[in-house]
């Protein structure tokens, strides 16, 4: 069966529906990175493969079933999430009355939590005001130290069924035994997820250095900006491979990596270097702080203490070294986050410990986490804490299936972003706003919030509550709900936006997430509304992509203090009606900006933006603002010259065009062609004024002026009159316009003289052309 791919531009889409397309799978093969040993199509099949390139659409049989499955997971009415977990099966089978009782209990608890939360939020905000993230906070440098010792090769004992969906197809086939990840695999994929979110939200200057430790340390990347991508890290990790279980455990230790981590923190980053150079004598303002996240399997609490002591010692040693080096900086603050990972079903040997000061330079916190999903959610919480992130769930996103284009279902997608996107909400603490969106988040209807609170979609209904509180204790709130708003916005509207923050989807390759991100990446924006119980509609945010990055824009929804200002027509210059609006529009188009490559160096040494200003200066040397003030800019015949004379440099060809324009004007005057407003004399005066302002620029500019002076009609007393000022002269011109015979005679003589000049100019032109 061949599916018909619907494109998002179909007419039904105007209702704001998203379409499930298989965009994620439609990438061209050329985009495949081939860094490490790509599989090659063997010879027999290559020709076929090429001939089949066009039929690249995805088959649908399997797709359908997976879609159905996800629907179960996301449907707001189902009280459980994914049916593949044992614990969950049992909870489903519970009787309905029990469920209802449990729900009531949960409601009560949630109300209590709500109160606690409100308090936390207020404290959170107070803290926030005092501690806005600095440029060189600990978040600037993060070192991951991942244990690569033999015991990390142990299984996490969390099994993943990867042969689930074939069962219906072929009977009698023995399904593949479930696979399970090693502790190493769990550690690596969770740390990569941490980095993925980090790099999505902070593509610049929140740096990661990744170190692997076994019998020695392996540094997989550097602080350099081009090394900051999950791509780079994945390639490096592939080269490292899983831990070798046969290696001598005696030689292996996480310590190698931790020592290397401290050394890495001393190394100066590009940003630190740039800022130090820029600040010169106040370079000491550039701080050196950092965080070490250590993923290991520790033996005991004593072992953990030993590791902490060792780090403390290394810091003192390295700081001494750093004092005498330009490329190193002493560490002013180091936060150690030690995550002890142990297999499922085992007892932990290490106890959790909240953040504690080991020394003025070092703090340490310890988490003991089971491998698998627990580790994943722990690191997700950590990345939120470490980088001031918050979560938003976009609800009610209408999407339709390819197969069922007539029906749509609503989906939710969770996004992470800087918490400032909700600063208004956090600030309002317990006031009006909290009863709005917050009530929706931890609202009484537990089933409604399941998919929201349950970040990973993995908890059974039973331990959902536990999962919720555990995250709250850690100070990270769940998620803010914002509702998809159907009337979309257009790009030519300028919203009053008080912040824009990059997002990262929590579950990046789930179908609803990729559907939403693809919709946005295609250049569309969507407004988001705060869900409120009272019918009022408050649009508070907008999702929009710019250059392949998606941003959550915060829109102002409060009353404006600038309302009802006096209209511009009531103020200075407001009564003038003949502004050259269209001409200035043209001027603005000519002075639009464009990005200039940093490498392109201008001989003048000026930055592009300075050159833009210089261009504005040239373009406005003579620029009358109103129509009745100018003759030349009302004449089509002057346009070629007016456009060229403002240029910084004139080519020989430009010069010729200018001269031709002038001869043409002479010709017009000779034929006595009527002018739009005034007389030829005024026109010549004005043209001369325009060109004079540029005459000093280059020799060719000067020659344009010379040409005008040579060709123009000029009464003998002109020079004298000029001294009395242009304006008076214009007034006299106006009286002259009424005309006296004398003047006409004079102008006749004048024109004769001019014809002579014209002829000599033509001779000059011919000379030039030769």
């Amino acid at each position, binding site marked *: 069966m061949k599916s018909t791919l619907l494109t998002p531009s179909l007419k039904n889409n105007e209702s704001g529906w998203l379409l499930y397309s298989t965009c994620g799978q439609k*990438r061209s093969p050329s985009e*495949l990175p081939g860094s490490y040993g790509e599989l090659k199509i*063997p010879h027999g099949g290559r020709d*076929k493969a090429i001939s089949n390139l066009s039929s690249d659409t995805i088959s649908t049989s399997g797709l359908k079933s997976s879609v159905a499955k996800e629907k179960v997971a996301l449907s707001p009415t189902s009280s459980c999430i994914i049916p*593949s977990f044992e614990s969950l099966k049992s909870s489903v089978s519970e009787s309905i009355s029990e469920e209802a009782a449990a729900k009531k209990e949960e409601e009560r608890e949630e109300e209590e939590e709500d109160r606690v939360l409100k308090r936390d939020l207020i404290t959170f905000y107070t803290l926030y005001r005092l501690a806005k993230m600095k440029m060189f906070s600990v978040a600037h440098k993060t070192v991951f130290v991942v244990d690569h010792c033999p015991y990390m090769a142990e299984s996490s004992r969390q099994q*993943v069924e990867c042969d*689930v969906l*074939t069962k219906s197809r072929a009977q009698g086939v023995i399904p593949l035994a479930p696979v399970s990840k090693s502790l*190493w695999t769990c550690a690596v994929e969770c740390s990569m997820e941490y980095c993925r979110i980090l790099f*999505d939200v902070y*593509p610049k200057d929140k740096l990661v250095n990744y170190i692997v430790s076994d019998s020695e340390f392996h540094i997989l990347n550097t602080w350099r900006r081009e090394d900051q991508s999950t791509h780079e890290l*994945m390639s490096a990790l592939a080269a490292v491979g899983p831990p070798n279980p046969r290696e001598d455990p005696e030689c292996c230790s996480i310590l190698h990596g931790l020592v290397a981590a401290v050394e890495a923190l001393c190394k100066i980053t590009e940003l630190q270097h740039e800022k130090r150079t820029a600040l010169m004598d106040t370079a000491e*303002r*550039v701080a050196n702080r950092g965080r070490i996240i250590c993923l290991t399997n520790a033996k005991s609490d004593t072992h953990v203490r030993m590791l902490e002591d060792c780090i403390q010692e290394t810091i003192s040693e390295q700081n001494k070294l750093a004092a005498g080096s330009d490329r190193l900086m002493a560490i002013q603050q180091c936060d150690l986050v030690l995550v002890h990972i142990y297999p499922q079903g085992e007892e932990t040997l290490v106890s959790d410990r909240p953040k504690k000061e080991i020394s003025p330079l070092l703090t340490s916190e310890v988490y003991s986490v089971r491998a698998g999903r627990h580790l994943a959610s722990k690191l997700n919480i950590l990345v939120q804490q470490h980088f001031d992130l918050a979560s938003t769930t976009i609800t009610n996103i209408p999407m339709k299936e390819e197969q069922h284009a007539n029906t749509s279902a609503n989906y939710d997608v969770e996004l992470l972003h800087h918490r400032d996107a909700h*600063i208004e909400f956090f*600030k*309002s603490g317990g006031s009006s706003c909290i009863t709005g969106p917050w009530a929706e988040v931890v609202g009484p209807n537990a089933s409604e919030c399941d998919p929201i609170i349950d970040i990973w979609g993995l908890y059974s209904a039973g331990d959902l509550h536990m999962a919720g509180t555990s995250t709250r204790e850690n100070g990270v709130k769940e998620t803010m709900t914002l509702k998809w708003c159907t009337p979309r916005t257009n790009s*030519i509207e300028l*919203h*009053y*936006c*008080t912040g824009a923050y*990059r997002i990262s989807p929590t579950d*990046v*390759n789930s179908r609803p997430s*990729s559907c939403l991100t693809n919709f946005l990446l295609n250049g569309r924006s969507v407004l988001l509304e705060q869900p409120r119980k009272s019918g009022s509609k408050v649009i508070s945010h*907008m999702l*929009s992509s710019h*250059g392949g990055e*998606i941003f959550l*824009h915060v829109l102002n*929804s*409060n*009353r404006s*203090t600038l309302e*009802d*200002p*006096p209209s*511009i027509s009531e*103020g200075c*210059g407001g009564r*003038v009606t003949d*502004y050259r*609006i269209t001409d*200035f529009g043209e001027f*603005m188009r000519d002075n*639009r*900006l464009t*990005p*200039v490559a940093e490498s392109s160096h201008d001989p003048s040494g000026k930055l592009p*933006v300075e*050159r833009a*200003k210089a261009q*504005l200066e040239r373009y406005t*040397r*003579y*620029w*009358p*603002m109103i129509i009745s003030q100018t003759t030349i800019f009302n004449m089509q015949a002057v346009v070629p010259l007016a456009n060229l004379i403002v240029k910084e440099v004139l080519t020989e060809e430009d010069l010729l065009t200018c001269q031709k324009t002038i001869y043409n004007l002479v010709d017009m005057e000779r034929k006595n062609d009527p002018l739009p407003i005034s007389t030829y004399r005024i026109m010549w005066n004005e043209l001369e004024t325009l060109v004079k302002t540029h005459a000093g620029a280059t020799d060719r500019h000067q020659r344009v002026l010379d040409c005008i002076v040579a060709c123009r009609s000029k009464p003998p007393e002109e020079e004298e009159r000029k001294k009395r000022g242009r304006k*008076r002269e214009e007034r006299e011109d106006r009286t002259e316009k009424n005309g006296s015979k004398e003047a006409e005679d004079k102008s006749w003589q004048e024109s004769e003289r001019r014809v002579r000049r014209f002829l000599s100019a033509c001779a000059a032109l011919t000379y030039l052309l030769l």
Partner: protein
Amino acid sequence: MPTVVLMDASLSMTRPVSLDGIEEFQRKNLAVHGLNMLFEHMASNYRLEFTALMAFSSLWELLVPFTRDYNALQEALSNLEDYDKTCLELALQGVSSVVQQEWGNGCPCQVVLVTDGSLGIGKGSLRHSLQTLKHRGDDKKFPLPYPFPTKMFILCIANAEELQMTDAMENLEELLRLSGGDGQIFTVDGPLCMKSVQAMFGMLIDRAYSPFHAVLHCGNLSSDVQVFPRPESVVVDEEVEPIPRAVSTDLEIVGFIEIADISSPPVISRHLVLPIAVNKEVDEVGTGTTDELEEEPSASQMAGKSPNFCVLLHGSLKVEGMVALVQLGPEWFGMLYSQADSKKKSNLMMSLFEPGSDPLPWLGKISHLGPVSEAAENPYGEDDSKSPFPVQPQVKRSYAQNVTVWIKASGLQTDVQKILRNARKLPDKTQTFYKELNRLRKAALAFGFWELLKGVAELLERECTMLPDSAHPDAAFQLSHAAHQLKLASSGDS
């Protein structure tokens, strides 16, 4: 930035002020006199400011809600009655709710507290409030700091010596610190009298209510403007750059950008840009033709009739749907655009971007925006069909790549199923089959998940044995090749 005037109406404000032995005024009269002076100033120089008037003693009352009607404020002031003791905490609470009700919690506000510096005794006094600061439940928190950015100006109808005799000064300083520190305490210099109080209010006016005048330049075209409200100084990073940056009084247009390209950028504040007439000889080229005419009937009519660059700029920005990029200082930019309100009135507005070299990622570094004329080929196309914006980042974000995440079981299952689905359609789907297979292999190698490679190899071998007789011979060939390669990879041999 709206203002709340919080006027002390306690009995102590009625204390007489002796001038040369003659009792003439109460402190209250002096305060009212000062405030009247402030209101008159605002009415003529700062009339777009919204101001509310509150009076407090042991209770508080909103006498005039936020308004631009300064007559109403003055009138309310003249009818002010005397009440009982001072209880500042409640009144500050009142300010908080009045402001938030009207403007929400994001709008910066100025609070002008006028008091005689006797701040109550016992419970409810400021001293008591501050002493108990740390021993309070969540429901009885001290109202400061406010959730909205606050500038607190405390005007004491008392001189500094008087305040320092008690702990009043200390308490007020603590109050200022709690409010966020962005404000000032003013005291009367010398003996209390009309003049000295006037001088004190004059200092407040200079500090917070003097109109911000600037010159807007676009090359040689320019206009004198008032920027309302006054743009605030901004601290970029308290550690690296602790000195606040202020907006320059020369606003230089750098160039122009389409609205669609600038694309609803985030801004730190918005301001009206109002052209003003400054009395000076109009000497720029091309402006004014009437300056030698006989005397004009009225200055404002005259100003209305002489062409102004702001009006021209506004008109063209509106018609063209563009914004002007304007430089506010070193590495600090903003935009000028036409803003229409619901009543079809429109205005020239300026929004300030976050200070720094690249406040909007999609424009790239602003200092690297140059004139179109320099480009070899017009980046907007000959028919304006193209745009050089948005600037693409060098690295794609995770959601714009086809990243592999297997944290959820479903992610892994979907990827395996995709391969199997294509495997069953070999050799038609060879290209997609290998694409998906390579993606899985690459991720499995990076995650050190060799067990998965083995598993998928087995699955492919199974598919191979289950091929129907009608299958293309190439299908079996591809499947066994792929399975073999995965097995090799799973042993670290690839």
